[in-house]
């Protein structure tokens, strides 16, 4: 009996490799969600027992009312004017405490906007606001008088 010689190509067929690869790319592109991985850092005080009592008169109090209405030391102010208001005070005392106090019904975004503005003090007015605090309602009830 005559045996038939096998003339099959010994190479691995790679012609569909690109198709498979591009399908995988499309899968990754569709399923990838660009996660927001950036934000404003906010260091919390650690020495809870030695919390210094800040007299209200010494500090700058920024009260944030709903819809973003700002009362800085009881005076109505725009967000863009806060740093100019703080500048002479910080020049006299770089450790001047700045207290951000949003009201309960204020939208969170307005608090972040004010905090962002104050954190940019070094770039905008050349002085860093070193002593910023955002006391919580519990702390206000415990420590303020």
């Amino acid at each position, binding site marked *: 009996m005559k045996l038939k010689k096998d003339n099959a190509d010994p190479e691995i067929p*790679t012609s569909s*490799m*690109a198709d498979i*690869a*591009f399908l*995988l*790319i499309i899968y*990754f*592109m569709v399923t*990838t*969600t660009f*996660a*927001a*991985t*950036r*934000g*404003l*850092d*906010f*260091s*919390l*005080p*650690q020495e*809870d027992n030695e919390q210094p009592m800040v007299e209200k008169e010494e500090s700058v109090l920024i009260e*944030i009312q709903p819809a973003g209405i700002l009362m800085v030391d009881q005076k109505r102010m725009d967000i863009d004017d806060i740093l100019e208001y703080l500048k002479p005070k910080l020049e006299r005392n770089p450790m001047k405490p700045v207290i951000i106090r*949003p*009201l*309960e*019904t*204020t*939208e*969170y*975004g307005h*608090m*972040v*906007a004010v*905090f*962002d503005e104050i*954190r*940019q003090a070094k770039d905008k007015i050349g002085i860093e606001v070193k002593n910023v605090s*955002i006391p*919580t*309602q*519990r*702390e206000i009830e415990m420590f303020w008088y």
Partner: protein
Amino acid sequence: MKIRPRSVQNQGIPTASMADIAFLLIIFFMVTISFEVDKTQVALPKTDLRFEIPKKAAYISVTETGQIRVSSGEEISVPVPGPEEVLSFAAQVVAADPSKPFVLKADRDVPYRYVDRVIDALKQAKAEVIYLLSEQETVDDAA
């Protein structure tokens, strides 16, 4: 004069390196993909300053209606009934790693009282740093 025979060139587009390019792209996507531990849909506040959040940070999300979800950064976030549970969650996380950063992913329109209670819980749990997750503010937003 002897005319040289017309050269027979292959008219096809060379696709041999297509698979290599495609696999390079796949590797890029696989390396850069980051699995979100919290997929809560919130409208983030917008800020000019934004700093990179460390990997494996613990997440606390607060929706516009005040619903809270927490994740230690290792697993998918789970809902919690209220801020009291945030305190016990944060205390566990801080006990395991005292320098663990927390990410607060709160909706920009949520009333501040919800966020206040979460921040208070983190302060009581002796968390060191909170990142307020935000989006980049653009020129159009500021105008």
